[in-house]
């Protein structure tokens, strides 16, 4: 069970000896919206399917998963990534969390300071002149940065 938060719910249920069938139990997920949840479910199913198809061949699994992930990224908007991360984090879905974090890292790695601040909703809290000193010290790291 990949959605660990949901698994926890089932485990708790079993402990309480509630014998309702799994298919009819409604599990409240107040922090996840339906759209990201749908994508995560599809991701999970796809992952399990690929794993089953390539039972012994780990490399094949990785390759196919990578291809699927590339396709998925093309369809997802950057803003959606953060929602997907939040959903995966809440559901404790480790593989998806890792994938989407990597995707965000990849998207921001060549971006400017201003872009990144905007993306994370941060404002500079440096004193006057401090930021400039840092920019000078790490000037080499600003080479080749994408235009905003």
């Amino acid at each position, binding site marked *: 069970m990949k959605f660990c938060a949901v698994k926890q719910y089932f485990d708790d249920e079993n402990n309480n000896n509630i014998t309702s069938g799994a298919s009819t139990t409604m599990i409240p997920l107040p922090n996840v919206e339906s759209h990201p949840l749908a994508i995560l479910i599809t991701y999970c199913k796809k992952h399990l399917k690929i794993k089953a198809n390539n039972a012994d061949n780990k490399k094949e699994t990785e390759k196919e998963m990578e291809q699927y992930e590339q396709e998925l990224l093309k369809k997802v908007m950057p803003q959606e990534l953060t929602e997907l991360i939040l959903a995966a984090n809440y559901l404790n879905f480790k593989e998806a969390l890792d994938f989407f*974090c990597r995707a965000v890292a990849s998207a921001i790695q060549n971006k400017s300071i201003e872009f990144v601040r905007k993306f994370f*909703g941060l404002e500079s809290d440096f004193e006057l002149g401090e930021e400039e000193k*840092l920019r000078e010290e790490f000037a080499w790291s600003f080479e080749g940065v994408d235009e905003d």
Partner: protein
Amino acid sequence: MLRHDLPQDVVVEILSRLPVKSLMRFNCVHKSWYALMRSHHFITKHHKFATSNNLGRGVVFKYRTSKGHLCVSLLSNDTLEVSRDVDLLSLFPDKIDGLHCIYGPYNGIFFLQGLYKGENVEDLVLWNPATRESKVLPEIKRSRRYDSGKKFCFKFGFGIDPNTNDYKVLRIVDFYGRQQLQFEVYNLCTDSWRVIDSSLSKLYNIYSPSFPSYLNGFHHWKAAEICMKARRKGKLFPEHGPTRLFIVSFDMSNEVFLETPLPTVPRAAGFIGQNIAVINDSVSLIVGYCDTRNLDINWFDIWVMSSEIGVERTWTKKFKVEGSGLAFGDRLLEIREDGLVLLHKNDGSLAVYDRKTQELRKFAKYGNQFYESVAVTYTETLAFMNGGRNLSE
């Protein structure tokens, strides 16, 4: 862009997947990010992620041009092309024209010893190629024992003390066999040297490492036993004869030595030489051969030392690197995982040789392999050596 704020641990997950160059730039984003990048927890997490996913890898390559000019470059691990040339003048306080040894890396940090006009200079530097940070080690206060007019030279070892996670450098003062070796240790956390009492059971000639030699809290050297024979007037002279070779290992935590004989390797068929190297998490011995009747036949035997604690250390011949890909005059630079071997070919080109398929792939030409060239793979790290700057409150 964000509707909800990402929780801090998620931000850490994202940042730990970024290359060091991006992180150095993002130092300027926010004070909390600046602080995060100097936290031991984040530095370790970031390095662990890179190591297990084969990210942020590079090759430090030292070589000489055909004219003998020293070059140090960072190469891409995949294409073996130059990412950038390293400006040695920016690392060392004094002018140097040689790098005696490249020690390390340990977790992406190197220790470099500079040479000027063939002499050891006191220029010792800790270097992080990923953050481009370097730290010059303080001068060692000469103790009166050294100024007795005896000739001496220095050898070094570098690694960390696994108990304290502090970087340490061992300096061996070698009196060319006239007296016992003396030792000093540098700790990064105190930024100072101190003399240590440790001693060896025999008189040795210690060889500076040709390959990375630190593993799991120990640094290793090849050492030749010097047997002294008394001659007239009570003066001791080294005995001539076949030298017995040992591996001398320094325990970085307990600051004591282990000494174990090297295996007796076959020498009949064109033995060239042997060197200690850490290969794939084992202490190994690389023994090179060239068939004296047919110079085109070259090979290496790789021996591995057992490493169980408390058990006597023994050597086993593990595998051979051989085949048509190896030619006379090739320099073996690095034995990598997956059966790949990095060579500096006799025509100056870098090449990767697959010892399983015997496939040889040649890359760009770099200088002349005749001069000693060194290539070491490393994984980028964020580790700061100068303690990070304190921002004004």
